[in-house]
């Protein structure tokens, strides 16, 4: 049987890759992809713990089911917010400055 640390190595490399994508990219969609990759790494670690520890036997898997559902919901809302960002500032580039002082006059 594969030792637990192998899965944890894959999980932390995925978390690091996702963090790299979230920090260095300018495109909003690519930042979202980075967040999803991080989430996948965390899921792998949780399922690995649930296999190797009998205390977790179903808790880990049940938690993953809930986490995947919540990920679906928040991805939908994040993309709708990106649509709003594009209508309001006509860009999806986080590196481009947008002015907010016009909003104060409302």
């Amino acid at each position: 049987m594969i030792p637990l640390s192998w899965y944890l190595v894959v999980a932390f490399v995925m978390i690091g890759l996702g963090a790299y994508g979230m920090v260095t990219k300018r495109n909003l969609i690519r930042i979202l992809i980075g967040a999803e990759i991080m989430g996948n790494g965390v899921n792998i670690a949780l399922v690995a713990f649930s296999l190797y520890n009998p205390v977790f036997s179903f808790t880990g898997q049940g938690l993953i089911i809930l986490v995947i559902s919540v990920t679906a919901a928040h991805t939908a809302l994040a993309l709708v917010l990106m649509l709003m960002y594009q209508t309001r500032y006509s860009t999806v580039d986080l590196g481009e400055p947008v002015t907010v002082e016009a909003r104060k006059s409302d």
Partner: protein
Amino acid sequence: MLMQEFEALFEEVEFVVIAVVVLLLAYLALEHREIVYSVFFFGFMAASVAGFYLLLEAPFIAGMQIAVYTGGISALIIFGVLLLPRAQGSSLEVLQTPRMRRIGMILSATVMTLSAVLALVFPWSQSFPADRPPIAQDLAGLAAWLWGEHGIYVQLVALMMLTAVIGSVAILKMEKTEKLSPLKDRPGLGSRGKENEGASETKAHDEEHQDAKEAGTQ
């Protein structure tokens, strides 16, 4: 005996192959220049992660990973790319200043180091019992855990889905309302910049005029 050795070897080979594929696809999803390609790479990566769940004796999680991540979330992001044509410009992939890039590398390296310490240095093996638990891959037990003992979580997930739908509808409706009566001098809608300054008053005037005309015709 020989069969068991073969099984162990096969498991390790399969793990290494899946790990290489997943990490390569994750890297490509972050670094490929075309955003559409990178979304497809993300979908394939999510499908390959299901292989890990098969190795970890979690058949339902593997199925749900493929159904929701590859089928649902990748489709969501592909639709997002379709509806956000500005995200497809390759000028977005040009990095900012090298200093920002260096800071980003340092931050992500910190995250990676911390999680590596948690994964490798922390004595996980001592906190677990020494004898291996019997491998249980029964879906009935998982269903009993989720629907029987923790049925409230299922209702919470349903409420969360309801919230996602209502939120999407509300935000899209808000966008339509703002399109019909735009906030004054808002940057980014239609004309960006100063040519909007003089036009806003006349626009309001025109609107009243238009309303009066419509009222007259009805």
